[in-house]
């Protein structure tokens, strides 16, 4: 028995020394050009499948059939994912094709994962596979449209993909000036060509927004101070001059003033109106209109105008601010103590109120 143990110890020590020699000598090639051995490939795939399956098992999948959701997901995919995975009408770029493992072509590969697994992979990425995590861990709700898009991907042809990513829901417009082209390729799919008709109520209206606020928002996204896996990568591609131009472009666009068609909860809107106009002294909630309009005094251009924004967008922003997950320019800290005091029903009421008035209302 004792001799056995001794032999075992010698064997393990020998293996350990061999391992150190292999590591230190650098004899094992780390090169991607040769790909994986089939056995390595199988083990890595098996391990990552098991891990993704286990860790995604508690994720609740929201409805993925909201209007415009696939278009939002397509635009985000086009901005964040296409340069490795390719897309309908865009074959895999040659640089990404030389990665080990290859980024899969997703119209097929996505079918082997369920919705929660796709969400988990997009949110966290996969170690050693070159699949990056979502640009921020503070905005998970942004990932679901991408999941919805991946589900629709097998049925999309190149024309539809182009329409989803470059059109504004109406069609692809002939862009003449450089700023038009930029808006067309970067903004239109989610915000609309004029920024007045977002594709989905998660997305803000940009038309007639304060120019300074738009500029500061883009700068904050670019500098990583405002968090969004959709907007941070887009803003990162922009120069300061482009940000200026883009902010001016949207600030000058007219609002779509057609009345909102969705059902109105008058009681909720009225509650929001009172809170927005008068605040709540007992709860130490200041009024909203002094900074965000509409009121007799024009608020500073530093602050966003909220009239006519989609209720869902506003409510989500208030939640994010209260959680400390929104970020923003220097001005965002002003909102933190205020958003902290709003409960869920107050956030809903305020969002409903601001969504119910059009951007041109002054009251």
């Amino acid at each position, binding site marked *: 028995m004792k001799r056995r143990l001794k032999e075992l110890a010698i064997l393990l020590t020998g293996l350990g020394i061999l391992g150190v020699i292999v590591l230190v000598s650098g004899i094992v090639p780390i090169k991607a050009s040769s790909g994986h051995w089939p056995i390595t490939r199988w083990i890595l795939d098996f391990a990552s499948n098991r891990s993704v399956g286990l860790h995604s098992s508690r994720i609740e999948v929201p409805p993925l059939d909201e209007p415009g959701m696939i278009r939002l997901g397509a635009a985000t995919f086009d901005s964040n994912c296409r340069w490795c995975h390719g897309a309908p009408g865009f074959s895999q770029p040659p640089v990404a094709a030389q990665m080990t493992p290859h980024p899969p072509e997703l119209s097929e590969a996505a079918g082997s994962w369920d919705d929660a697994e796709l969400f988990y992979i997009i949110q966290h990425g996969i170690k050693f596979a070159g699949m990056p995590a979502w640009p921020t861990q503070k905005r998970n709700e942004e990932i679901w449209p991408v999941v919805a898009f991946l589900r629709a991907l097998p049925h999309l042809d190149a024309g539809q993909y182009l329409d989803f990513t470059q059109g504004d829901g109406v069609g692809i417009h002939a862009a003449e000036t450089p700023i038009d082209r930029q808006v067309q390729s970067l903004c239109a799919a989610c915000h609309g060509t004029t920024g007045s008709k977002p594709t989905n109520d998660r997305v803000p209206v940009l038309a007639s927004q304060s120019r300074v606020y738009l500029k500061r928002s883009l700068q904050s996204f670019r500098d990583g101070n405002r968090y969004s896996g959709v907007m941070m990568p887009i803003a990162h591609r922009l120069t300061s001059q482009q940000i200026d131009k883009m902010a001016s472009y949207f600030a000058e666009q007219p609002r779509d003033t057609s009345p909102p068609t969705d059902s109105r909860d008058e009681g909720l809107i009225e509650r929001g109106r009172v809170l927005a106009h008068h*605040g709540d*002294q*007992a709860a*130490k*909630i*200041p*009024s*909203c*209109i*002094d*900074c965000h309009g509409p009121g*007799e*005094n*024009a*608020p*500073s251009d*530093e*602050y966003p105008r909220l009239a006519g924004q989609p209720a869902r967008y506003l409510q989500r922003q208030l939640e994010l601010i209260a959680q400390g997950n929104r970020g923003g*320019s*220097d*001005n965002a*800290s*002003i*909102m*933190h*103590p*205020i958003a902290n005091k709003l409960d869920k029903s107050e956030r809903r009421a305020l969002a409903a109120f601001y969504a119910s008035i059009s951007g041109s209302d002054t009251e």
Partner: protein
Amino acid sequence: MNISASQSALDFAGKGAERIAELFYWMTGGAIVIWIVVIGLAVYAVMSRRAHPVRMTHWLVIGGGAVIPTITLTALLSYGLAMLPELQEPAPKGSTTIEVAGVRWWWRVNYLDPSGGRIVTANEIYLPVDQPVEFKLTSEDVIHSFWIPSLGGKIDMVPGRTNRLKLHPTREGVFHGVCAEFCGEAHAQMRFRVVVTDQNAFDEWLETQSQASKSSSEMAEGEAMFLSRGCSACHTIRGTSADGMVGPDLTHFGSRLSIAAGVLDNTPQNLARWLVDTHGVKPGVEMPAFESLSGEEVDTLVRYLGALQ
């Protein structure tokens, strides 16, 4: 901080504080008497080597340990209780009446106008010398305690009820008031200034406070900035459209001695610092810091606020 202002209960400038100081000195004297007798007897017991008659030792123990302390304490208690009726008595009808509400972490001050109206100010209280004044004290959130050590006793401000306090200043000067009940993060910075003046100066001050702020063309830019930056969501400046009630009324801000509820002297430098480094000056304060204000904007706002005389 204005160190010339007094915050000592022994440096009294009001009838209540004077009685409290008297009581303090008598108590100290009483404590000294008890201490000398008890310790003296203890030392005597240790040092003495001769035998004592049993009767005498009983008397020493009972007399020194029970009788003398009881007599001294009873005397002090009677003396202290005898002060209460006078201190508790409401100020005579027609006295100046001031409502003060504790709000984390500042003071909402309303002078009741004889005609029934309220003259609103904050974080600073003017009092006429040699006149009794009636305070009505409430709280808008948690329990605070209202204390001007140089003028009188302290009393809790309890949400949902009104406590009253009479103060009767006897000497002119500037005094500190404080919150004397721990009320949260910025409790130690929940202070105010009390200015005791002669009746004429007081009347003049109150008359000024009752009016809206005067505006001039030089103030227009600052006023526009105050409104557009949203300061008006929390602050009222009578005479403008600023009507917020969440924070202190700033109508005559420029005339006040201190800012941030008695934390800093009201100087342009301090105010500029307060606007952008609000939480550095007073951690926990509800007012957000306006970090994005440019130097020029800060100057404009500081000039405007200083002009609110």
